[in-house]
């Protein structure tokens, strides 16, 4: 029987689209950038070609505030992707951002027993390679 050398599991990474590229570029620069309609001004996330409010196809990305309040959360124990095995269990908080959209990201430095809806958090930036920076939360 041959002994296979197990490759370490690879981290799943985003494949930005033409619509979402500015969002990921923003994170890489440490800026939380969201898509806004150039016509009616409303924010939308995730990025997409058409404003569902006014149907305009013109949009611009603007830097927005990084604060928010917890909407809900889960604590991931089973590593469905084995890359996350070492990190488990980890909290993933779904946050109502002050900027008007939600963001799902790991919440660090908060004990599971202290979690509650409405808890204030802020978004941080964690580079994982040269191209990709991912968001995470800490208590505000």
């Amino acid at each position, binding site marked *: 029987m041959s002994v296979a050398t197990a490759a370490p599991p690879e981290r799943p990474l985003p494949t930005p689209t033409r619509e979402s590229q500015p969002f990921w570029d923003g994170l890489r620069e440490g800026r939380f950038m969201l898509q806004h309609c150039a016509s009616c001004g409303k924010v939308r996330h995730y990025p997409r070609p058409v404003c569902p409010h006014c149907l305009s196809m013109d949009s611009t990305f603007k830097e927005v505030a990084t604060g928010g309040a917890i909407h809900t959360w*889960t604590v991931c*124990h089973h590593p469905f992707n084995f890359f996350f095995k070492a990190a488990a269990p980890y909290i993933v908080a*779904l946050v109502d951002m002050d900027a008007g959209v939600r963001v799902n990201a790991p919440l660090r430095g908060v004990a599971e027993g202290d979690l*509650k809806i409405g808890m204030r958090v802020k978004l941080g930036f964690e580079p994982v390679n040269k191209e990709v920076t991912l968001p995470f939360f800490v208590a505000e």
Partner: protein
Amino acid sequence: MAHPLRDKAAVSGIGETAYTRGTPKSGLALQLEASLAAIADAGLDPRDIDGVVPYFPGGGIAEDFVANLGLSDLKLSVFVPMGGATCVAAIQTAAMAVATGVCNHVLISVGRTGYSGARVSTRLQQFPQFALAAEFEAPIGMFAPAQLYAQGARRHMELYGTTLRHFAEVAVVTRRHAILNGNVVMNKPLTVEEHHASRMIADPFRLFDCSLESDGGAAIIVSAADRARDLKKPLVTVMGVAEGHPESPASIAQRPDLLEFGLAKAAPRAYAMAGAGPADIDVAEIYDCFTFTVINQLELLGFCKKGEGGPFVMEGRIALGGALPINTHGGLLSQGHVVGLNHVVELTRQLRREAGKAQVKDAEVGLVTGYGDMGDGSVAILRRAA
């Protein structure tokens, strides 16, 4: 005026393979085996089938059905890409086809090697509907349905006081029903304590809150009601059927209310088509990818008020002999995961009075739901024709 689709279509044939963990058969073979069983159950010949709605992605496509079953004149090939809501939504598609005369007999089928083949996270990567989750959530450690749906369950607990005990009740009752069925993956009793002690998957979901990864196939035939009347089995007609798509359909995270999904839109339409309401339902087969999902759907179906689904499932209400027996076959939690087509098979059996030890006495009208794909919903109301 009655809805033009009401009672125009019938579930005329049902078929299943054995539900197992482990099989040498392919997903396509399981799907065809179940399809042949459904065709035989209806008393039809494969050449009578003139429409197919195979589950997609995964399993066979129209070409496979023509090549394997010798379908001589296929008139309709449709995919309904709604994840777990597919099978019941496909009844609406099939009903439209047979009610308008496009087809006479439409075959809806699933074959899945969910245990011996690719597991859930890998399977979902084939779904275009999961592209947003793949881009924005998989990199931060969220991709499996257990993780994505757990956040809604947690919010329900925080807002309404729903508890682990409520979740356990769904799991334990479903298991009890499975044992009566026999063709099930999980055939040993489950206690509340065992549920509570099972390992955490994605809080608040423990192992026994999650549906099975299993191998198996299921199929049904939807026929024009006037043709089904002459077939072998008691006539079971489609009184009402509807599909619904939630706001922010490809991202749960961005949905205004995580606890309002496609079923909230589909249920009122299906009831209106049927001319029936929750009080008319004798038995319900509720898509149970997770225990909590059942609780949430019971609310959206109007069996109880929003937030009251937890207490509703207690005190034997959802068990055989209770006011609303659910998942009388063992569901996805204990029988097997064939994307809920087993729920349609079971409801048809109940209304034919063929459900054996799990038979709901005098069942006349029943309901079946589908749920999936980040919150798509579907519901059908079937009845035993007089």
